[in-house]
């Protein structure tokens, strides 16, 4: 190893220790500093993991997919180098390696799992030369103009051209844009998808650009549509169609708020598993992770165990993209749950914008006295990080009173009983690029989802 690289590693690790000491996230700065001193630091460090590097990219589900893959590696006894959620630009990737490297420059992981921002893919792959990759899907954002999605797809496609020789790439067969990447580059595509029509949606909404043929622009015909534009499509004009997946779930049952049962078929064998996180989108994440694991050569039992063990650390936090705002929604139904959600929110970086929706219908519990057992005092003690709290729902006023007594500055407090108005106000007051946290009780969550979907900009979340 070059002395210059070692020096960069030391400096980077020093910065890392310092940022940790002062309590800042420190996810990108150490990497940025090290890269200044030794531009090749990532190139050098990323060569080390015995089983190589796998990148995970795509619009939605990167974090969950990476988490599942990580659990699979753990089950196989492979130490993992992994970047934390959000630090998916080039400096963040570098930081992940610095973090896992010893002072002599040895990387601890036997494999590196890197969540990579789509636009960073070309540069990251050029430097890292991954042995495998996972692409989850491509969802357009509300404000995206025509063509934005294509640009995103192109970034990823260009990145995949830099993969190591003989690389395998897990691609979502049910997403036309994602599947079409299989024809680009010299890697071996490994398609994954759903094969159970019983979980399909009845109707396919039209007009979305994502539902037009990636080759000729004609509207696809869907034999079955699973989720938004994901499904079994074919072009009536040029014949472009969904490839047959090699990793798929052909039976899905017991889908409830806690998880899903599925039967997964892979080239290495099949198994049944119960996912501990809910939603069809997480079935997709599970298949993406399983396909990625097959690409890495993980044993089947480790794949099953990893899926079984992955739980949501955020409780049930959904991520929704509304206009150019990120919305996180997490159910709050009792004091303990509320406390852990608050902790999660306060751990996140950036200003906190909150909408708390409190209902007291049967399904929520008609007695809301537990609010006084929630530790809002520690929330209020960090109120310089809070931009606003909008209290909404049938018990909006109760919530506001609770926060007042917790010591929250009244100037930051708004009472807007109507959920739709509260959502609009929240979105309006969040800075572009900021995150709006919506914390509803059960029935308020159902209502809020309905409102979001009605407004049409339902880019249903994805990360759990």
């Amino acid at each position, binding site marked *: 190893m070059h002395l210059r690289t070692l020096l960069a590693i030391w400096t980077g690790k020093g910065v890392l220790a310092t940022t940790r000491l002062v309590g800042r996230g420190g996810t990108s700065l150490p990497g940025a500093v090290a890269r200044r001193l030794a531009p090749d630091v990532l190139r050098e460090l990323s060569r080390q993991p015995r089983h190589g590097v796998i990148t995970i990219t795509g619009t939605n589900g990167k974090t969950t997919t990476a988490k599942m893959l990580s659990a699979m590696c753990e089950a196989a006894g492979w130490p993992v180098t992994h970047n934390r959620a959000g630090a998916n630009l080039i400096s963040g990737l570098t930081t992940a390696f610095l973090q896992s490297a010893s002072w002599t420059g040895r990387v601890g992981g036997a494999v590196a799992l890197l969540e990579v921002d789509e636009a960073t893919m070309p540069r990251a792959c050029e430097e890292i030369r991954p042995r495998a990759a996972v692409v989850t899907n491509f969802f357009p954002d509300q404000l995206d103009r025509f063509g934005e999605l294509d640009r995103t797809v192109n970034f990823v496609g260009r990145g995949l051209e830099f993969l190591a020789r003989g690389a395998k790439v897990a691609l979502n067969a049910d997403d036309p844009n994602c599947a079409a990447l299989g024809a680009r580059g010299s890697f071996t595509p490994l398609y994954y998808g759903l094969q159970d029509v019983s979980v399909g949606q009845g109707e396919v909404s039209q007009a979305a650009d994502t539902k037009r043929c990636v080759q000729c622009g004609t509207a696809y015909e869907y034999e079955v549509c699973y989720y938004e534009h994901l499904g079994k499509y074919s072009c009536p004009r040029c014949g472009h169609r969904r490839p047959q997946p090699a990793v798929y779930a052909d039976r899905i049952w017991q889908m409830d708020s806690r998880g899903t049962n599925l039967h997964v078929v892979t080239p290495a064998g099949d198994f049944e598993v119960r996912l501990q996180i809910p939603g069809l989108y997480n079935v997709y994440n599970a298949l993406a992770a399983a396909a990625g694991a097959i690409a890495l050569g993980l044993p089947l039992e480790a794949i099953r165990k990893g899926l079984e063990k992955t739980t949501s650390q955020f409780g049930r936090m959904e991520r929704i993209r509304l206009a150019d705002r990120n919305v996180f929604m997490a159910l709050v139904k009792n004091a303990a749950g509320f406390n852990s959600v608050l902790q999660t929110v306060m751990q996140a970086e950036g200003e906190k914008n909150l909408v708390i929706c409190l209902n007291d219908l049967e399904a929520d519990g008609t*007695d809301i006295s537990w609010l*006084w057992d929630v530790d809002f005092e520690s929330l209020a003690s960090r109120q310089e990080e809070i931009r606003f709290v909008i209290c909404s729902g049938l018990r909006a*006023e*109760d919530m506001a*009173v609770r926060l007042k007594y917790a010591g929250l500055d*009244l100037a930051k407090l708004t009472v807007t009983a109507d959920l739709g108005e509260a959502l609009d106000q929240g979105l309006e007051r969040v800075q572009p690029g900021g995150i709006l946290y919506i914390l509803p009780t059960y029935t308020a969550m159902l209502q809020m989802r309905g409102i979001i979907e009605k407004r049409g900009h339902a880019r249903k979340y994805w990360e759990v």
Partner: protein
Amino acid sequence: MERPRLRIAWLYPEYTSRYGDRGNIIVLVQRARWRGLEPEVVQVGLGQRADFHQFDLVHFGGGQDRELEIVAEDFLKVKGSSLGEAIREGLPVLAVCGGFQMLGSHFRTPEGETLRCSGILDLWTESSDQRMTGNVIIESDLWGKPRTVVGFENHSGRTYLGRGLKPLGRVLRGHGNNSRDRMEGVVFKNCVGTYLHGPVLPKNPHLADWLLMRAVQRRYGDQVPFPPVNDELEERAHRAILQRFGPH
């Protein structure tokens, strides 16, 4: 200048931190602070003796039914006589649910046994197989003119007041003491007993201040002022309950 102190006893915090009654403590403390007072909360748990003459205000909540016996025994043995004396001398007390019941003479269990209580007030409780749960609105004369008090009740005991005792209010909505005589709670000197959780004080700032003001007056006379504070939010929350659950 040193801020005038106010000593608040929180009885059995380990049993009353359910149903959010801890909220009553938070409200008393904050409203005292907003008046420039220096409140001090002393937790008085199981087995701990206390001289209630040292306190300016007492919160006595009640846990779940099955814990009643433990608390009842301890209260009778260790704390009852001192608190009774202090109440008769005018100590402001808020007794909620189980605490309310334990101020009485006895409690008849579901098995038909009679559990002797402190007998501080002439009231008693009989268990029933009816769970009385839901939002409550009462009208009280505590302030000269009738004012509403709102809360949430959750009890199966039916409490009856002896003839000389006044209730906290008349039930406009909900069950109240026993679901029969339309009475809710009790008031004796500066002691208030009630079945209202919610907790009761956050949405009834007038009740919180009724207790606090008496606590301040008892200790400092007119030397320490007790100015009003802005209760806009609290009153909004109070009105929201009246609008949703009030008799129309």
